[in-house]
């Protein structure tokens, strides 16, 4: 499909948010209210990457909010993508700690459903949906950041499986994940990445796996380095076909880049400031514009969301959402700084602001740098005449 044809999805109106979606919102809001009252979490910013809570994730899974679109046989409940979008919006808006299961729910599960064997689906999906099994993503490497096709971690075929050597980095919560879905090189050196890469499921408890957390500028640790020293991955843990990794990863990135976490990372802060009101015209005008942009971003995500199940992943549309969404997140912090001056002295909001600021350089990097998004957008765009 041409880029132009793909991007025309933004001009289409998805079906109205029906009663099933409204019921889903009520239901997750009730769950969040109970979880908050019982002390299971306090609102934070950038929760989907940083806030890892096994207790919260288990409770969420037990309530049926993880893997909700998956078939019942795999622990899901066949919910619609619109119902799921409502739930993840509410989780982000509430500032709930969702990092433990976020990747499993967002992209690993859909990848297993699309490319996995029956045995793989049975082995992972039900425990992921219960919120007991966590996956991390193994894409970036020390020498492969934006240039994902250059990954060097190698997998060599041996009797019954593969020997994997190399390392991954910027692996969020690699120290707490049970498995990694890793992109590795199975082809010959010099072979085009379209045929040379493969996705494998790595058991993080395998002999030869070393995980080292990376201390960030705020003193916290959520990214890790992961080293593979001659680890064994059985054939049954190859996802899809050897050599089809690149195409599969592109599909995965559609899920990774288009969701509301690309513009709601700072929302708990913005909502808190909004509740404190604004007295100056400057603030009211700029806050109004910020909110208008959020209305538009939500409309954009809702439009991409209906296409995530399509055979051809809407990768360019997802890049557009990510570029505009993460710019919103940064702009929201600029305005939050002004807003905090005006707001009554509020220690909680000040803390959220400092947290968000410490995380903010990652907004336009993680999941593909803004520059890469713009290359993706420009590449396929052709004039109509």
């Amino acid at each position, binding site marked *: 499909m041409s880029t132009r044809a793909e991007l025309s999805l933004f001009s289409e*109106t998805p079906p109205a948010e029906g009663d099933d979606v409204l019921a889903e*919102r009520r239901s997750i809001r009730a769950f969040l209210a109970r979880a908050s009252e019982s002390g299971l979490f306090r609102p934070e910013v950038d929760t989907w990457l940083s806030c890892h809570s096994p207790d919260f994730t288990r409770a969420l899974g037990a309530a049926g909010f993880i893997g909700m679109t998956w078939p019942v046989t795999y622990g899901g409940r066949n919910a619609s993508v619109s119902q799921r979008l409502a739930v993840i919006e509410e989780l982000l808006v509430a500032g709930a700690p969702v990092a433990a299961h976020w990747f499993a729910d967002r992209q690993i599960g859909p990848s297993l459903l699309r490319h996995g064997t029956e045995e793989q689906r049975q082995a992972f999906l039900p425990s992921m949906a219960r919120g007991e099994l966590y996956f991390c993503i193994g894409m970036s490497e020390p020498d492969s950041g934006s240039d994902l096709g250059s990954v060097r971690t190698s997998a060599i075929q041996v009797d019954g499986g593969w020997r994997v050597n190399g390392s991954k980095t910027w692996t969020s919560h690699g120290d707490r994940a049970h498995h990694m879905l890793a992109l590795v090189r199975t082809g010959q050196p010099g072979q085009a990445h379209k045929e040379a890469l493969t996705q494998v499921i790595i058991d993080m408890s395998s002999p030869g796996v070393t995980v080292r957390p990376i201390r960030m500028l705020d003193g916290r640790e959520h990214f890790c380095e992961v080293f593979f020293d001659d680890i064994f991955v059985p054939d049954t843990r190859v996802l899809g076909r050897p050599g089809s990794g690149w195409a599969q990863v592109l599909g995965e990135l559609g899920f990774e880049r288009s969701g509301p976490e690309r513009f709601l990372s700072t929302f708990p802060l913005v*909502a808190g400031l909004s509740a404190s009101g604004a007295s100056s015209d400057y603030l009211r005008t700029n*806050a109004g514009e910020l909110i*208008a*942009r959020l209305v538009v971003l*939500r409309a954009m995500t809702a439009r991409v969301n209906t296409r995530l199940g399509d055979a051809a992943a809407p990768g360019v*549309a997802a890049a557009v959402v990510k570029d505009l969404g993460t710019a919103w997140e940064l702009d929201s912090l600029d305005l939050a700084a002004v807003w905090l001056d005006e707001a009554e002295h509020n220690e909680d909001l000040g803390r959220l602001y400092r947290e968000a600021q410490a995380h903010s350089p990652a907004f336009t990097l993680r999941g593909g740098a803004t520059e890469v998004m713009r290359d993706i*957008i*420009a590449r396929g765009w052709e004039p109509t005449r």
Partner: protein
Amino acid sequence: MSDLDELLDQILGRSCAPGDGLDSRAWRHLTESGLDRVGIPEHLGGVGGDLVDAGDIVIRTAQAGLISPLRETLFPVAKLAELRDHAIPEGVIALDDYQVKDLSPAHRQAVRLWHALGVAAHSLGAIRGAVDQATSYVAIRHQFGRPLASHQVVRHQIASIVSELCACEAAVSHALAQAGSSRANTESVALAIASAKIQTARSSTRVARTAHQVHGAIGMTAEHPLHYFTTQLWTLPREAGGPELWSQRVYDLVHSPGQADLWAALCAQHQF
């Protein structure tokens, strides 16, 4: 493709050139086909169809570079006709042909909203036109021995206006769907339209600037069609209220006494 899209393809594809006005063949064909009365009920002098159809006509004619008052006829004028239950007279009808002073505040507000929606739709069309011009030009123009489109700094300029365009597409289609929905409440319609007006206003300025930048001086000539889009993009943001005014409106809407908090206000919509 809908019948309306096919008809628009026929009329605009065959006979419309950027800069065509009310003396053009395209305009004659449009009016003969009744497209200047779409979205208006028959008893009010219209030919039927819904708000999304009316939006489509405004967007597509603006994209083709047709200079017309359709953004007024099909939106605030149509709203006025509905509110007063008076049929729209024959001929070319703009908002200036009416007095709105005698309307109740609520009705004046409704006409104002529909005016903003029409301008947002027209702006989207002009943005499409300018983005088309810019992307065509960078593909054919060579500098430093290769097409402009192969220079990364230029590609990123193109990507940024394509993203602006995508945001405007979503903003306007969302606003049209909300405004045409019988289930949407007044506040969510106002929020959707105000957001579309702000988005298209900001994007208009940025797209016009970048489209000119990638064209170099040729884009400033009378001969090149770019100016039929960009000169409109310069003035459209100020039509029916500027983005600052609408931003204050958005702030007030989400902070009205009926709204529990910001998120509740944003979710008070039945349709995305």
